[in-house]
């Protein structure tokens, strides 16, 4: 944040927080390895405005899933949150609450949808039983009502509700599981939903229909959604705001249409250029150089994108750019904003 913005009084900042379903500040996560800690998420600030869809895009291994796990304070070993605060609806720092309170928030206020390829359901219990488990865990009194609501949701999601409730996980196809996962995240009326690569393993038509349902439900219930994916297409399609995540840091954020239309960071630019499209000039597409960030990238001193950057200078190697505002809420972390990437 630049100096000028901090002048804009504490109040507006507070206001802004009030509007935020999630407001995370200065999140740092490290992974403990035998050779020392690797910073997986570094100094990340992220806000999820109420009732909006935010897309977080990053390559595999960029730490994007770790980030949302950190927001839920559910980072698994060997990862460790070293600092940060996560305000939920402007209050209650998730990272400081007692574990019992955290537990009650998870699932009830924050829903989470896993990657479709993952088996997020207990293989030995029927779906219905697991809904009851969920209800009991969150002290729902009227379990019958809960089941009815689950049925309603399932029907909305295009499934045969009774059959699904009586099924085991292995009896469902990938697309069905994904929809069941969405149902689980919403059945307790959570307002905030995180989706982690939730459509990645689905085929085209399923993906389109799941995205459509998410969009509908979001509109209807005014949900706050954070959607994490490596597929820029899906994020671009679904989200209103976009966070470009690279090697543990946000390198660019802003309104989706604006970021896509005029990307500022060389990574964002490269990424957009690297997607084959069904319209326009085929030969305009150009692959991004280098390989995805790995643990060595995380340990770099200077700009994390230095290795792959077409417009790098020597100074980029030694110090790291901060996320600065370029245009309203469009922020970029690059020393060379505006430089011609063809040099």
């Amino acid at each position, binding site marked *: 944040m630049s100096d000028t913005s901090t002048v804009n009084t504490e109040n507006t900042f507070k206001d802004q927080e009030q509007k935020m379903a999630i407001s995370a500040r200065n999140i740092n996560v490290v992974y403990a390895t035998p050779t020392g800690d690797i910073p997986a998420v570094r100094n990340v600030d992220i806000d999820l405005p109420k009732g909006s869809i935010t897309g977080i895009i990053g390559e595999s291994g960029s730490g994007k899933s770790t980030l949302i796990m950190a927001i839920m304070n559910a980072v698994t070993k060997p990862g460790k949150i070293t600092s940060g605060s996560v305000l939920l609806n402007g209050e209650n720092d998730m990272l400081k609450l007692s574990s019992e309170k955290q537990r009650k928030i998870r699932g009830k206020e924050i829903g989470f949808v896993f990657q479709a390829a993952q088996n997020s359901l207990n293989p030995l219990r029927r779906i219905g039983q697991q809904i009851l488990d969920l209800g009991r865990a969150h002290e729902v009194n009227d379990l019958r009502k809960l089941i009815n609501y689950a049925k309603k949701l399932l029907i909305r999601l295009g499934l045969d509700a009774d059959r699904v409730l009586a099924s085991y996980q292995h009896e469902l196809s990938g697309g069905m599981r994904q929809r069941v996962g969405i149902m689980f995240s919403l059945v307790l009326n959570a307002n905030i939903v995180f989706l982690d690569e939730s459509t990645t393993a689905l085929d085209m038509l399923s993906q389109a229909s799941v995205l459509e349902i998410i969009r509908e439900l979001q509109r209807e219930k005014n949900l706050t959604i954070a959607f994490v994916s490596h597929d820029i297409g899906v994020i671009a399609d679904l989200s209103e705001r976009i966070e470009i995540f690279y090697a543990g840091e946000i390198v660019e954020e802003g309104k989706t249409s604006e970021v896509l239309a005029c990307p500022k960071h060389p990574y964002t630019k490269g990424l957009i250029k690297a997607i084959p499209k069904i319209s326009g000039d085929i030969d305009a597409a150009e692959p991004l150089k280098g*390989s995805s960030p790995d643990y*060595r990238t995380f340990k770099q001193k200077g700009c994390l994108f230095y*290795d792959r950057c077409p417009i790098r200078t020597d100074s980029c190697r030694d110090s790291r750019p901060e996320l600065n505002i370029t245009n309203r809420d469009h922020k970029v972390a690059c020393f060379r904003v505006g430089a011609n990437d063809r040099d």
Partner: protein
Amino acid sequence: MTTPDTVKSVHTFTPKPYNGSSFWKAAWRSITRKTSRIIGFAIIVLFTLMAIFGPYLYSSHLPINTNAIYAPISWKYPLGTDFEGTSNLALIITGARYVLLAAALGALFTVIFGTVLGLIAGYFVGWSDSIIMRITDFFLTIPSFPLLVVLSTVWNFGHPLAMGFILGITSWGGMARAVRSQTLSLRERGFVEAARGLGLSPFHILFREILPNVSSYIGMNLLTSITGCIYAEVGLFFLGVVPFHVNNWGVMLNMAVFSAGAMSSPEALPYLLSPLLALLLLTLGIVLFLDAVDEMFNPRLREDV
């Protein structure tokens, strides 16, 4: 010309070039990574040396001393003596060869039978698989130790090779089944398909592509089979159901319990405890060393930091 860009210069590190001895270097590194593994390795080396050179340390027959029957532990007899005044330590050392050789052969047979049959059954699904698996099931079903006991009365186990063979025969079933199931899953893996597509021979695919992938499993099994074989063979000698005529740990146990009265009087206790100690020490060594085996055979674990 639009040659795709190379990834040159992207990585700031360059891996060390590996030459032929890399496996041993890497294996050594994985052993020395933990103290416990070094201890285990040292114990195994000690026993191996004992098996190889032990008999040469002593004259072809061990001296007896009728004045030192069941002598207590002393400098001269670090583990006491037996019923005729022979040093128990000498008995343990000279007895190691048969015990370990037979166990090593037994484990080798187990692993060879198990691996080859498992690979074949898993790779050439169809009738060969059915036949091999029926046989395997059959061997798995027969309880192996009672079978050994029964077999031991028919067979002469004078030579470690015979003992090893019979131990191998009775215990390869589990190995074959596990290797088969791993092979079954590996043959669905892309690289096996690719090798087939590239026209590589089934022999190459089985032994060059699939085998290295089950090698860590085989390595671990080799070790655990060795312990299993040692127990089975020492047990057979202990029960006295097989004929024998060499210094042997199991014979020592048998004599200590059934004729020296080690269980009833403390004088002969060292005679009983010395083979027990040898067994326990060897077990400890193998248990500690086992930890390193997975790492040794798996390049992913081996090379990574």
